[in-house]
């Protein structure tokens, strides 16, 4: 039995469909990320699991029991808000004790469990502080401890790292992952940041326009996206649009403006549908001369427009002779950078391209 089971959840606000027949499950201890752009329905989904919104139809099962109509305080949920929502008039210890007090934990047990929770988030000794005396990262961890200490059935995190600066975010992402794995609590993280989702989650639920686009592990979603939206939202992508010429055994041939190109077909493609070939930047080889050219099925002549030095990586901005622009990423191995306007070859194989149906107007 899954720890959390959403079945056909639908929610409409004033005739705008916020969540449209969404279904997914989370196994006990699993970390699931709800990923999508703003307005995709991920926050509404979270608020329905928490009980702040009631679904129009569908079921929300926690531990096998339908809680869709239960109030938030009647569910055993731990919530970490985007703004942390620490009670400013209480100390750290009182913030953490609040949930235990209301969930009927014995009074004598509260101080020890508070200390344990603080130790788990590496903030021991800060019991007497006020939230205003803590840094953003510390506040976030207090919020985490406050939610975890009541041993909730499901933990919900709303954009947990979005209020922190870039460097701290990286560091806290690793810590967050450790704390969540250590707590072995089923966790749902809402985020619009694909890196955060891929770094934190066991599985990702990609949402768009109220609908679930695809559910899978980060590797699956990246390597085998089922829709144009998923391929475009996760990671970088170059798109070569065209017509589907042939499709068989997971291989598809596309007539593009640069000629016929083969790629992998990850989803069913309707015949003669407008499709596009997705080429990940790191799967494109930039060849300054003919050396190594024999390794690639497809070679496209191009010229270098710009090379961005990203430290560990180099990003090439390329213009194909036929006019399309592509970007490629390669490890920075210390070789001299090509000049601007230098002629190069862009090489890739059928394995490197993914053929996906282009969204119809009104979608994506």
């Amino acid at each position, binding site marked *: 039995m899954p720890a959390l089971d959403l079945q056909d959840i639908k929610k409409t606000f004033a005739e705008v469909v916020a969540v449209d027949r969404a279904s997914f499950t989370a196994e006990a201890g699993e970390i699931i990320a709800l990923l999508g752009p703003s307005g995709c329905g991920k926050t509404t989904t979270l608020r329905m699991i928490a009980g*702040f919104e009631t679904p129009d139809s569908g079921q929300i099962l926690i531990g096998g029991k339908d809680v869709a109509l239960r109030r*938030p*305080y009647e569910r055993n949920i731990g*919530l970490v808000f985007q703004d942390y929502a*620490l*009670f400013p008039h209480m100390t750290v210890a009182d913030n953490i004790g*609040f*949930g235990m007090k*209301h969930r009927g934990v014995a009074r004598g047990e509260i101080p020890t469990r508070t200390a344990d929770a603080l130790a788990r988030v590496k903030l021991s000794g800060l019991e007497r502080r006020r939230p205003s005396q803590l840094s953003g990262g510390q506040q976030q961890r207090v919020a985490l401890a406050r939610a975890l200490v*009541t041993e909730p059935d499901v933990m919900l995190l709303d954009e947990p790292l979005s209020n922190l600066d870039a460097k701290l975010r990286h560091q806290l992402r690793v810590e967050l992952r450790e704390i969540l794995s250590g707590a072995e609590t089923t966790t749902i993280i809402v985020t619009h940041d694909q890196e955060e989702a891929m770094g934190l989650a066991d599985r990702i639920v990609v949402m768009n326009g109220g609908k679930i686009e695809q559910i899978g592990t980060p590797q699956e979603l990246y390597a085998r996206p089922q829709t144009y939206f998923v391929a475009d939202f996760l990671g970088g992508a170059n798109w070569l649009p065209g017509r589907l010429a042939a499709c068989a055994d997971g291989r598809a041939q596309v007539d593009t403006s640069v000629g016929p190109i083969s790629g992998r077909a990850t989803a069913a493609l309707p015949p003669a549908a407008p499709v596009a070939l997705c080429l990940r930047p790191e799967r494109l080889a930039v060849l300054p001369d003919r050396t190594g050219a024999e390794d690639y099925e497809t070679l496209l002549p191009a010229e270098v427009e710009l090379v961005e030095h990203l430290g560990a990586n180099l990003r090439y901005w390329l213009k194909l002779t036929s006019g399309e622009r592509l970007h490629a990423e390669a490890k920075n191995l210390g070789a001299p950078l090509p000049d601007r306007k230098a002629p190069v070859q862009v090489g890739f194989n059928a394995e490197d391209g993914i053929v996906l149906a282009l969204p119809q107007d009104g979608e994506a």
Partner: protein
Amino acid sequence: MMRRYGDLAGLTLYALLLAIAALFALVPIVVSIVISFDDRTFIGPFPPSEFSLRWYGEFLSDSYYHEGLKVSLLVSGIATAVSTTAGVMAAVALDRFQFPGRNVIQALLVSPLVIPTVVIGFAMLMFASRLGIIDGLPRLIMGHIIITLPYVVRTTLASLTGIRPTLYEAAISLGATPLQALWEVVLPLARTGIFAGAIFAFVMSFDEVAVSLFLSDPFTYTLPVALLAQMRADLNFTVAAVSVIFLLFTILLIWVIERLVGLDRLVGQGIYRG
């Protein structure tokens, strides 16, 4: 160089105007303080030549004022308690829920601020007599609740607006019922606004004349009504003495507020920040 002289002249004028405005406000108060210690029983040349505490003695020994002070404290105390409780509850409802007629109710709750107190006094008198209430005390309390309610509603609403809604949701998600979340999280954070509203309410009620004039009866009258009646009957400087006591009382109240919450928080940002 000319610009500098211009600036200086402007600044001097500005400072002068400020000083005049301050004097305008302060001089009458200073005069009444001095007069309250005047030994003469008639209005003579200022400053007085002989000083005494006779008007303070008059105030302290006259049971007419005692009765007024007692009624005033009773009416203002009860009215403040009731309007604070009701006002906070109303503000919470207005802040937390969207319902049809919400704006109308909010306007109604605050409307006594803009309705002339004479009108309120007369209306309350009529209303009370319809209800068969002819006793002064309940009438006064009713009237004072009406005029003090807007202050509590406004200050509480202002500080509730500054409280992030996620704090309430966090409390609910941690197992607190809505009532517990309100009591343990929302109201403590709004305490500056509630406190400010209660103090305003008390001061406004204690000061109130027009409504009290209508609602008093021969045996139940507030201190300001007593003063007014005494002044009409026999003008003496007891009024000045009582003014000074009023003034000291206000200063004491401000000092208490300053010690408890900080005055700048009370009149400024505090109302909006919780």
